[in-house]
């Protein structure tokens, strides 16, 4: 007789429960990193993310619940290679298991790098990095704004360099946290504050000294990048870095690899500008002096010929010209001297340069006066020439016009004499 032995069995429910307990209590299956690629990705409206994690030989479904994924700073993409931290759970109803993700990070490129690249792409599409948006920095900034840590070396470097280049520069520092979770908000706030017209700032340097990639992360945060882009005053991004440019570099009007270099970009060297002015004034002086010399020589040449041909007729004209020129010169000089005096009175420390310009101008005018004096017929007459006039003040140009007994007047440079001709004879 066959004895029917009932095999020991368990129900499906019991089986799945057992499996579930085995799996969920197995420390090797609870807090594990699993590497794979993402497929069948669904961002569900509930906020949960569903996907299948695959490699060449296998697949496992995964869920990334909202309360775990809400702080994630990048977006999962189809085909992305990732490391998933999670544990297995079992669906007893279907006899299937899935990976319950608590954290996902991109494999290969670091998570931060990935985030930056995604943000870069997004902002680029928006035109945040458009070169056409960049403004020129002011040539001569009146007030320099600085956004950085109030206690960092970057601030000292910027102040030191700025003062060395332009000793009387004005600097306004908006202190910001440059490290930690609240750094991005703090930096953005400081940039906005300095942009308010009441501070009179016409260029801003925002940055920090060098640090690790993570240290520089605040300058890759969207809120900081946007604050740079939206700055109401031209802004220089000054984040110490060796290799990778932080995103705010590309959104700013200019950028420098260190805070010191940014200060050099923003602040001109005052003595260079002074030298430039001096050089230009010097060129003007040289040009004007040589111009006056040429003109004087030309006038002198022309005049000497005319004077000897026809001295008396041009005396009046010359006299008029002379007195006119003289009075204009005098007025001009008076004007120049008055304005110089005013300037001397109002500018407490007139520079040596200005004093020299004044001296040179005086010299120029005296040269001009001398040149014009040389042209005066009186001057020529003073050298021993005289003009003889007869009846009706007519100039006697020839001995043939007079005879013995004629009364004539002789005009010397300093007076008039009456005379009577005793003899007149033409030279053969």
């Amino acid at each position: 007789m066959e004895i029917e032995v009932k095999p020991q069995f368990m129900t499906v429910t019991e089986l799945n429960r057992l499996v579930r307990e085995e799996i969920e209590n197995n420390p090797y299956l609870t807090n594990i990193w699993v590497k794979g690629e993402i497929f069948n990705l669904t961002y569900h409206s509930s906020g949960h993310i569903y996907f299948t994690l695959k490699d060449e030989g296998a697949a496992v479904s995964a869920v990334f619940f909202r309360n775990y994924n809400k702080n994630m700073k990048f977006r999962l993409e189809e085909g992305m290679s990732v490391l998933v931290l999670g544990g297995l759970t079992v669906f007893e109803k279907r006899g299937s298991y899935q990976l319950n993700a608590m954290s996902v990070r991109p494999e290969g490129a670091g998570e931060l790098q990935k985030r930056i690249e995604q943000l870069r792409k997004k902002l680029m599409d928006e035109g945040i990095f458009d070169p056409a948006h960049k403004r020129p920095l002011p040539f001569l900034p009146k007030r320099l704004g600085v956004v950085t840590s109030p206690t960092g070396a970057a601030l000292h470097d910027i102040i030191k360099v700025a003062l060395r280049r332009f000793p009387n520069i004005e600097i306004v520092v908006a202190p910001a946290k440059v490290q930690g979770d609240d750094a991005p908000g703090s930096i953005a706030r400081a940039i906005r504050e300095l942009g308010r017209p009441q501070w009179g700032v016409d260029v801003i340097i925002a940055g920090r000294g060098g640090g690790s990639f993570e240290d520089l992360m605040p300058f890759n945060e969207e809120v900081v990048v946007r604050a740079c882009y939206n700055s109401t005053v031209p802004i220089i991004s000054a984040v110490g870095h060796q290799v990778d440019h932080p995103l705010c570099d590309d959104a700013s009007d200019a950028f420098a690899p260190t805070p010191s270099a940014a200060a050099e970009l923003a602040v001109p060297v005052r003595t260079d500008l002074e030298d430039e002015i001096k050089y230009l004034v010097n060129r003007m002086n040289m040009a004007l002096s040589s111009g006056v010399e040429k003109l004087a020589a030309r006038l002198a040449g022309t005049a000497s010929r005319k004077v000897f041909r026809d001295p008396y007729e041009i005396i009046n004209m010359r006299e008029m010209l002379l007195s006119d020129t003289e009075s204009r010169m005098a007025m001009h000089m008076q004007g120049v001297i008055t304005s110089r005096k005013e300037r001397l009175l109002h500018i407490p420390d007139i520079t040596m340069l200005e004093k020299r310009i004044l001296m040179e101008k005086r010299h120029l005018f005296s040269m001009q006066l001398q040149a014009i004096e040389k042209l005066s017929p009186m001057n020529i007459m003073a050298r021993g020439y005289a003009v003889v006039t007869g009846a009706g003040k007519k100039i006697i140009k020839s001995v043939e016009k007079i005879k013995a007994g004629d009364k004539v007047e002789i005009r010397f440079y300093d007076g008039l004499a009456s005379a009577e001709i005793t003899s007149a004879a033409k030279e053969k």
Partner: protein
Amino acid sequence: MEKVKKSAPKPAFEEALAELEEIASRLESGELGLDDSIKQFEKGIQLAAFCHKKLEEAERKIEILQKGGSDVVARQVAVKSDTGEIEDDEDMQGSLI
């Protein structure tokens, strides 16, 4: 808001310097008569004085912004020129805005 009537904007330093350069070149070209030369020269001297004035306009001053009640206020600080260090920075940490 009361509007303040603005006077014509004064030429900026950069423009004044560029104009000075132009005048120097014009004088050097020898195209101008004596009268014009002197006028231009005078203008150039004025521009040079203006540029100098602009360079002297700023008064060396370092200010730190900090919270003053609900407002932000500027506090002037002394610095060491050689190192750029702020001399009275004991309460810098609390000066974030």
